[in-house]
C-alpha cells in the first residue's frame, strides 16, 4: 500500500489505506473524525459532505486515494478553540438544526456556497443545500441561518427575505426531488 498524503483540517497526515477505502471511512475510522456522518453510503443523503480543495463532496462516494495530495475540511476543522465558525453560530442562533445528524454536511455545503458566492439569494441557498437531506427541520431555518451567516461573514445583504417567494425551481424532473444529491 502506498501511503496517502492528505491534509485534513490543516494538518498533514501520511497514512496507508487499502485501495477500497472511501474518504469517509478514512476520516471516520482511520482518523477518528466522526463529524461527517455515514447516512446511506451511496451518495443519496449528503450527511457525509466534506470540502475537498474547497468543493463540497460526498465523502462516501470518493475514494481516499482520490484525495491524495489534496486538502480536506471537515466539521471538526471549522470552529476554533475560542469560537464557533460564523456559520455554526448562525445555525445555533436560528435553531436551524434539530437532531443534527444532517448538520455537519449542511454546514459544509453552506460554507462551500458562501466561499464562492458571498451574497446568495434564497434560491441559490436552496440549490446549494439540495443534496443534503434533512428529516427534521423543513429546511426553513437553515435557509434563514445561511443568510444570517452571509451577512456575518461578508456584510452581505440580500434585499429579498430568506423566505422570498415564489422560489424558482431547478428544471429537474420531479420538480427538484432527485436533484443534485
Amino acid at each position, binding site marked *: 500500500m502506498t501511503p496517502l498524503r492528505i491534509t485534513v483540517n490543516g494538518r498533514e497526515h501520511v497514512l496507508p489505506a487499502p485501495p477500497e477505502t472511501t474518504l469517509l471511512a478514512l476520516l471516520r475510522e482511520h482518523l477518528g473524525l466522526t463529524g461527517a456522518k455515514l447516512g446511506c453510503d451511496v451518495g443519496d443523503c449528503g450527511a457525509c459532505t466534506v470540502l475537498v480543495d474547497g468543493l463540497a463532496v460526498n465523502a462516501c462516494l470518493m475514494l481516499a486515494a482520490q484525495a491524495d495530495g489534496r486538502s480536506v475540511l471537515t466539521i471538526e476543522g471549522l470552529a476554533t478553540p475560542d469560537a464557533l465558525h460564523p456559520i455554526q453560530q448562525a445555525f445555533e442562533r436560528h435553531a436551524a438544526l434539530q437532531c443534527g445528524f444532517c448538520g455537519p454536511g449542511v454546514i459544509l455545503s453552506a460554507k462551500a456556497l458562501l466561499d464562492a458566492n458571498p451574497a446568495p439569494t434564497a434560491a441559490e441557498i436552496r440549490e446549494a443545500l*439540495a443534496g443534503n437531506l434533512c428529516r427534521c427541520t423543513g429546511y426553513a431555518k437553515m435557509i434563514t441561518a445561511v443568510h444570517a451567516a452571509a451577512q456575518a461573514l461578508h456584510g452581505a445583504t440580500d434585499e429579498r427575505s430568506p423566505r422570498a417567494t415564489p422560489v424558482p425551481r431547478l428544471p429537474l424532473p420531479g*420538480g427538484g426531488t432527485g436533484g443534485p444529491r
Partner: protein
Amino acid sequence: MRRRGRGIACMWYPIGFTVSANPSAATVKVNEDGTATLLTGTVETGQGSLTVLGQIAAEALGIATEDVHVVSADTDATPMDTGAIASRTTYVTGNAVKLAGERARAILFEAAAPMLGVKPEQLEARDRKIQVRGFPQRSVPIGEAARHALVGKGEPPIGTASFNPPTVAMDPETGQGKPFATYVYATQIAEVEVDDETGEVEVLRIVAAHDCGTPINPMLVEGQVEGGIAMGLGFALQEEILFDAAGRQINPNLTNYIMPTSLDMPEIEVDIVPSYDPTGPFGAKGVGEPTSVPTAAAIANAIYDAVGVRMTALPMTAERVLAAIKAKRAADAPRLAAD
C-alpha cells in the same frame, strides 16, 4: 397549463395516551449557588424538549434558564418518563417538572420566611431571589435561601413530583368518556400549482396556524411546525414504501424513496395562535405530531381547487394526479358533447 389552487384543512389532536397511564416524573434540586439541577427521564431528539423543560423549571423557581442544569434520559439515575411520544413531553413531563420545582420552592419559602420575618405564603421567587410579595426590596438570594434550608433547617430544597394526565375511560355502551386530558388544534392552508398536462404538483406556500397552548419557546414551536410540514408534504406528494409480491421493499434507498429536499419546500408561514390551557405547565400543551396532520389534506383540497379532481390515495404523485385529470376529462366529455 399550470393551474393554481388553494386548499384548507383543520385538525384536532390529543396529547398523551388514550386513557392508559403515561406518567412522567421529575426531580428539581436547588443548589447553594442559586442554580438548579433538573432530573428527567425524557429524551431529547432535537425538538428542544430539554430546553423547554429547563425553562419550565426556571419559571417555577424564579431563576434563569441558563441556571438550570438538565440531566436526562439516564435510566440508572433519572426518574421515570413514558417517552418522547404522543406529543406529550411539554404537557406531561412539563407538568411534572413544574410540580417538582414548586415543591423545592416551598422548602425555600419555609427557610426564607424567618430570615425575612414574614410567613411563607407572603413570598414569591423572582429574579433569582426569594422576596416578599409587594416588597421586592425585602429579599434573600435564592442560593442563600437554599443554603439556609440545607444547613440551617436541615431540609435540602429538593422537589420530586410525577404527573399522569387525568382521563376517564370510554363507556363501551354510550361511547362517553374523556380519553385525553387536553387537545390541540390547527389549520393549514396550502397554495399549489398543478400542471394539467403532466399532473405535477408544486406547493408554493403553506400557512399554518397552531394552537399549542402557551408557546414556552416560540422559535422551537416554529421549528416543529416547519419540520412537520416537510413530513406532511412528503406524505402528500412523494413518500411511499413499495413492496414486491414477496413483501420485500423495492425502494429501500433515498433515490427511490423520495423525501422533500430544500428545493421541494414551499414558503412556510407559521402562526402561533394565542391560547392558554389552565391544566398545562404555565398554560402549555404540545405541538409535535399535530404539525404534519393537516398538510396532506390541505394540499389535496388545493389540488381539487386547481384542477377539479378529488385525490383519494397518497402520495399524490404526478402519475396519479394525471390519471385523475384524464378520468375526469373522459367523464366530462360525453356531457360536453351532449350540451
